[in-house]
């Protein structure tokens, strides 16, 4: 097994995951505007910020974290946190799509979900190639989120103020995570490069 070959493929894998988060971040900005307009004022007003609700989707660790904690995260923990966050957020956005009555917006949200799903797959593949197990998939399954497919036969839940506030926060949390993940993958790239240099010294 050629260590430099592995390293190169790992690096390109991290790079493409990084690119994907930047792309999704960009896509999300557009969808968020449309979605908030759909919710109606004051949700689409500048500086609007309702209290964060206490729902299942939002009990996940927030993207916001103290700098020294973030800095010192081990590679596996860093990736696992990302994986858990996106598992939960993907299910939450699917629910958002289901409760959206506007067909074009529903389609855009579902399309965005495919992107999120791709990101999850990318992260899992990265964890496998680095030899880390993926417990987060099982953890996400514990939550009672309907994760089966996108075309649900159940009637769409009635939109309520609390659902609107939750939708607002899910998109905000997603935005924070995508912004943070880009930095996570950059950090991961640097750490792997540093550790490979150390490895090389002993060969």
């Amino acid at each position, binding site marked *: 097994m050629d260590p430099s070959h592995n390293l190169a493929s790992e690096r390109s894998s991290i790079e493409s995951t990084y690119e994907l988060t930047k792309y999704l971040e960009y896509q999300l900005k557009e969808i968020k505007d449309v979605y908030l307009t759909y919710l*109606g004022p004051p949700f689409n007003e500048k500086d609007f910020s309702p209290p964060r609700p206490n729902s299942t989707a939002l009990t996940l660790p927030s993207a916001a974290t103290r700098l020294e904690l973030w800095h010192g995260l081990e590679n596996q923990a860093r990736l696992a946190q990302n994986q858990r966050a996106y598992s939960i957020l993907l299910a939450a956005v699917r629910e958002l799509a289901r409760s959206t009555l506007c067909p074009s917006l529903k389609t855009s949200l579902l399309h965005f979900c495919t992107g999120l799903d791709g990101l999850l797959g990318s992260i899992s593949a990265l964890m496998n190639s680095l030899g880390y197990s993926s417990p987060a998939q099982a953890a996400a399954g514990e939550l009672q989120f309907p994760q089966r497919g996108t075309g649900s036969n159940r009637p769409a839940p009635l939109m309520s*103020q*609390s659902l609107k506030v939750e939708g607002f926060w899910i998109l905000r949390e997603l935005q924070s995570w995508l912004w943070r993940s880009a930095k996570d993958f950059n950090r991961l790239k640097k750490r792997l490069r540093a550790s490979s240099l150390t490895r090389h010294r002993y060969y």
Partner: protein
Amino acid sequence: MKAALGFCLIFLTLHSPGVLSLSTHVAIVYPQDPVLRMGSNLTASCWVHPELGVHANSLFWTLNGHQLPSSLYRVLSPTNLSVTLAGLNASRQTSGDNLVCHNHKGHILAGSCLYVGMPPEKPVNLTCWSRNTKDLTCSWAPGGKGETNISTLYKLKYKLRWYGTEKECEDYSHTQPYSCSITQDLHLFTPYEIWVEASNRLGRATSDVIILDILDVVTTDPPSGVTVSRLGQLEDQLSVRWEAPPALKDFLFKAKYQIRYRLEESQDWKVMNDVGNQTSCRLAGLRPGTVYFVQVRCNPVGIYGSRKAGIWSEWSHPTAASTPHSERLMSCDSKSSGDSNSTLRRELKQFLGWVKKHAYGCSSMSMKLYDQWRVDMQKSPKTRNQVGSPRG
């Protein structure tokens, strides 16, 4: 102590996201997510938890981000403030209007989605057609002024007239609203009853029932392979040929066709109606040296012995061709030397002149036509000018 606890509750809710887990609501608006008719009145109330330490008269309401005047408020109790809205307008968005209760600092305490609209009106203009008897597609339009922002569900229903249970169409078009296709279990030779049911949270309405036999509303694909070409040097005619739509092969019905043509720079189409069953036709009386656009369409007639016509297909893609330039140069001398060539030529000229007059339309050029001319030439002038076009 109460005030301190109240302050803590507000602080924890508003400044430490995701940490606090309240077992009771901080505040709540009644009614939650009501559905109302346009023009009706609503009195909503905002109840705040006593431990919040907030008095009802310090609260205010907004509707879709706009603050509501305090003249509409009433303090029902120290923890309960109501607002009365009269003559509600239709909801601004399908997700419902946002009626929100705020504390004096503007922080959101609770809210409710108002759905204001009208019950649906009877759907209208229900029409159905079948493509090659393989499916039945129907379309309709919402009645009256159309839908308000209360989401309205439409169901296309059908049943066999003299027996059979009511069924619902499942394949609603995503590209065209108010349209659905029935693709399975279609029965021929028996009438269907078809109607549309509209419903929303304020009521329902049903369209008139239409009764039809699938074989009476059949349409097909436009003819394929449409070609337009010149007829030798004939400067005022063009020949149009096409192929019957492939689907017709399956059926025991004839087709009838219609041709339309126009000048390149004009928008006025000229339609030729009596094209019949053939797959070719001649256009006459055209302008020399001009480009024409031609289209053909097809109507499946007499399906399985029915006497009714079907529904016209779409027009084929336009095909273009140009008539030859008229060559009014030195005329081919009729006064040239009388050799056998010029006799033949003269005869041909006469024949062609006769053809122009008597045989325009969709009969094809053939020896039969020539023979018919010969016969006609034998007749006395009186009888010659009788009767219509020969059969091709």
